[in-house]
């Protein structure tokens, strides 16, 4: 991890990967229901049109629970989703030429944290059109400023609701179904 990474994470220690904690990170009462029907034409494991002409989102989080929740919400509004467990894996996907419209990026992850990931991403000008939204338990004023400075476009603090996620997507100019 480089100098910037150490500096950036000072005072922002990870609370650890804990599935129970992750479940609390998503606030209840917001319509999150795995049993809700999907949009017509959307199969369990993919899209009827093979994903062409749909928004592509890369979800980067070391918690499978959070990835599943985000994926469920985004698929419901028509996105095609890919996943990565840490910043390094995400950068590898992007460097290999995969393009996305949006990246939802956790901060506290093993191997490479989200702040270092967005810094490298923007410095190397990889997939420059892609919007990056940090989705993290970090809620310090200084930290949010730093994330924006490194090139994040938006910031969603955990815990969040499906509604606040949709509202943030609208802020990024990403259309979502009602």
């Amino acid at each position, binding site marked *: 991890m480089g100098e910037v990474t150490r500096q950036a994470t000072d005072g922002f220690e990870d609370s650890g990967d804990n599935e129970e904690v992750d479940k609390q990170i998503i*606030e209840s009462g917001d319509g999150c229901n795995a049993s809700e029907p999907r949009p017509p034409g959307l199969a369990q494991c993919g899209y009827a049109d093979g994903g062409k002409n749909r928004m592509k989102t890369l979800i980067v989080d070391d918690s499978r629970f959070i990835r599943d929740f985000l994926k469920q919400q985004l698929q419901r509004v028509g996105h095609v989703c890919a996943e990565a467990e840490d910043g390094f894996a995400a950068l590898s996907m992007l460097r290999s030429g995969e393009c996305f419209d949006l990246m939802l990026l956790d901060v506290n992850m093993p191997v490479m944290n989200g702040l270092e990931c967005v810094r490298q991403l923007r410095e190397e000008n990889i997939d420059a059109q892609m919007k990056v939204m940090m989705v993290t338990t970090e*809620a*310090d*004023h200084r930290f*949010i*400023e730093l*994330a*924006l400075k490194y090139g*994040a476009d*938006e*910031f*969603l*603090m955990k*815990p*969040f*609701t499906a*509604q*606040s996620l949709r*509202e*943030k997507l*609208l*802020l990024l100019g990403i259309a979502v179904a009602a």
Partner: protein
Amino acid sequence: MSCSETDYAYLRKVVLEESASLIDPARNLWFEGRLNPIARPAVTQNVDGLVELLRVDRTPHLQRAVAEAMTINETSFFRDARPFDMLRSKAIPELIRQNQAERTLRVWSAACATGQEAYSVAMLLLEHFPELKDWDVKIVGTDLSRTVLEVARRGRYRRAEVNRGLPAKMLVKYFERDGDEWELSMQARELCEFQYANLCAPPPTLPVFDLVLMRNVLLYFSEQDRSDVFAAVHRQMDPRGFLLLGNSEQAEDSTDQFEMEFASESYFYRPVVSY
């Protein structure tokens, strides 16, 4: 013991009289959840006891408390986003041109709830219209719930509230984190004031407004009450002003008073001037 249908009907009547809001009978269970906190301080065991107390005493403050508790206070910063794009690209520049001589701007956030709409306008003005720095600008938020007005005046919001609709750039620029809350800057708070007003009662002393935001309020009003409110708002507006309603609302029953226009993917209304 739960309320009878007669009790619910009585509570719906109290809310209608006090705030003009129509409560759908399908939402009767809301009364239980929302009125229990009132029932206890009022020294009754539960909501049916509260109904009994209301019937016997008809105490005005208790009737008001019931109406306030049943008010829907759903709000968020920059709610629906597009109307704020319209304010930025169309309404505010036009009002600045119109009011250049007086150098005043008056905005009304009607049924402002906890203040996010009024403060969103304040941040929008600070962010995009530095020429207003020396103007006399006032954003007035009104509501019939004194509880929400207190929250609005504090200008402090929890994480769940700043997570909703507020761009991160605005958060870091106009808020300071203080423990579990985020406090809005004095610069933005100074532009806003909050006061009690019931849209269905004679209005308190209010200025003439250049811009009125009355969004997602009239959905719960009867046709007659909607018409009365539009008439009152019309009287309170500058003839060259702008009125914004919620996405699913229209002034269809008051077309003699307001004309619909469209800009920046948003509908808005202009007062019809009669000579």
